[in-house]
């Protein structure tokens, strides 16, 4: 089996000798790219089979553009799937309807005809619809494929079980039993504090569709992500060498039962960045030192058992002049800054919730200046320009009370993607 590549970078390749310091460490995990090589994986078809349930909100608020785009996106999904995949569609308002149960995607036209007839009505029985979608998946569980519910909604759960904690806990419970959940929230009126944790603890992705037009793009990304899923149940432990202390892990991961960092699913070929800050003591010039041991636990998509990858990282100490004249790794600086910006967004959100809009704006303003300063030498990098634009735009929209719900969602999802996917673009 081909293992993920784990690389460890520091801002400069060597550390300055003779003083205690805090060191930013970028840990980059890159799973192998999808391969069609049958010699190493005889049963591998190039991608896992999918067993999906689309759980589609058709409550009154979906009426118009949103309903049309959601239907289009669901039909697009049908088009993208293979006859070896399975799909079911569940629609919900205050009533729940299994439009069609889990079936192989062989008669695409029949599926699309059924989807085309879905129109908006009623209120939002989100929880039960999610359970029903899960049931259609669980009745046809794929051993080595991906079993997933994709919940699409623009509203608040207001029928049946509505407690966020309860639904999030159940989503995790279902994931532990082999079915993951992704959520797609549309517009400004759904509950991001429900949909994001539901996907995070449910082993899937959380998406925010700002404009109905974005729906197809999001569906495509979700599908590509499913197809490219390399491993699930991913965890990392960082064990610093004696005398070294972990000050912070900027991604703010949840911890597993055994105290490891709980990481998102790994995607084939796409790198995932983690930043840890270590406190390192004074060392002599020329000395080599073990910085930390890493243990990456994961369950590859086509395997049943967990794998553990172990790696150690050592670093050399040099004189101040040598270190100052060495090249700076822009990737480390960027990763640190973007994760700090994720925290700034969460902080801004807290201030918003407390009614302190000026404070929220100030937090984003200083994040923007900090980004410009830190990334000055590579300011033209598209990711940097995009990050600055995003901070600026959200900061502007904070001035308008009518945009509050949308601003909060933008902050929440931008923070989430930076901490869990390492990508800016959803």
């Amino acid at each position, binding site marked *: 089996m081909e293992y993920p590549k784990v690389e460890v970078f520091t801002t400069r390749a060597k550390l300055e000798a003779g003083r205690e310091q805090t060191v930013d460490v970028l840990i980059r995990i890159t799973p192998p790219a999808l391969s069609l090589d049958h010699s190493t994986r005889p049963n591998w078809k190039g991608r896992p089979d999918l067993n999906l349930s689309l759980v589609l909100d058709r409550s009154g608020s979906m009426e118009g553009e949103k309903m049309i785009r959601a239907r289009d996106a669901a039909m697009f999904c049908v088009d993208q799937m293979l006859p070896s995949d399975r799909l079911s569609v569940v629609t919900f308002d205050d009533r729940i309807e299994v439009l069609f149960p889990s079936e192989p995607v062989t008669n695409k036209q029949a599926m699309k005809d059924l989807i085309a007839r879905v129109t908006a009505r009623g209120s939002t029985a989100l929880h039960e619809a999610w*359970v029903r979608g899960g049931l259609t998946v669980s009745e046809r569980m794929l*051993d080595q494929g991906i079993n997933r519910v994709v919940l699409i909604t623009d509203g608040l759960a207001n029928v049946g079980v509505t407690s966020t904690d309860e639904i999030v806990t159940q989503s995790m419970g*279902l994931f532990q*039993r082999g079915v993951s959940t992704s959520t797609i929230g549309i517009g400004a009126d759904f509950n991001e504090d429900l949909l994001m944790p539901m996907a995070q603890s449910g082993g899937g992705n959380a998406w925010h569709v700002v404009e109905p037009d974005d729906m197809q793009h999001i569906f495509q990304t979700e599908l590509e992500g499913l197809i490219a899923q390399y491993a699930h149940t991913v965890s990392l432990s960082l064990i610093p060498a004696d005398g070294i202390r972990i000050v912070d892990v900027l991604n703010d991961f949840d911890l597993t*039962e055994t105290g490891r960092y709980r990481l998102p699913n790994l995607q084939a070929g796409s790198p995932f960045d983690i930043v840890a800050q270590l406190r390192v003591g004074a060392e002599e010039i020329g000395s080599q030192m073990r910085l930390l041991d890493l243990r990456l636990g994961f369950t590859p998509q086509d395997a049943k058992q967990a794998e*553990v990858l172990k790696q150690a990282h050592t670093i050399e100490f040099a004189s101040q002049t040598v270190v100052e004249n060495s090249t700076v790794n822009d990737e480390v600086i960027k990763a640190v800054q973007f994760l700090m910006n994720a925290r700034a967004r969460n902080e801004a959100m807290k201030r918003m919730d407390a009614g302190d809009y000026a404070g929220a704006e100030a937090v984003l303003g200083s994040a923007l200046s900090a980004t410009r300063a830190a990334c000055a030498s590579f300011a033209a990098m598209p990711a940097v320009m995009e990050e600055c634009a995003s901070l600026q735009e959200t900061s502007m929209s904070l001035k308008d009370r009518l945009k509050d719900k949308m601003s909060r969602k933008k902050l929440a999802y931008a923070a989430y993607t930076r901490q869990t996917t390492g990508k800016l673009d959803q």
Partner: protein
Amino acid sequence: MAIGVLKEKGRKYVGLPEFARVSGQLVSELQLEQQRGTVTSVPDERTIRYYLAEGLIQTPEEKQGTASVFNYLNLLQLLTVKKLQAEHLPIRKIRELVAGKSEQELETLLGVRGPSGKNTEAKRYLESLLAPAPSAPPTETVAAPPQQLDASPHSWQRVEIEPGLELHVRSDYAPPATTGKTRSLLERAIHRLRRLRD
């Protein structure tokens, strides 16, 4: 390979030597991280006695003559301890993780849950979520106690926290997802206990 463990379900092992033999086989079969450089010794009778004394393996209540009769739960406890040791967790932490865990939970910790097991499990779980038949009209959130008339096939497990205090855990219970939630759960538990005292 992992399925070898699941095959042991329901079996009993009379006497320490037999238990040591079977678990020894499984430890090497499961290659509890041996391959990747960590030395994991196969558990001998002495090690098992130590685990029993440390409370890492529950002392079997059943006896045949003078021999203790070990069961599947004991086996899972032993394998999980081995696995966690291979991950360099301290004994204290291992005890915390293993004590009072059900067969299912230990299978999950061990990573040996077969997909076919998961299959029916996911379905049963979801069905249990639907069990308290959703009353149609949108109701205000009522803080009523969960009124399950238990038609659903749940099993309960009793976990002793200390003499005189037990937790009852339903088979489909999922532990809190985040440390924050764990904390709030603990706070609720403490609060309830205080009310008993007052």
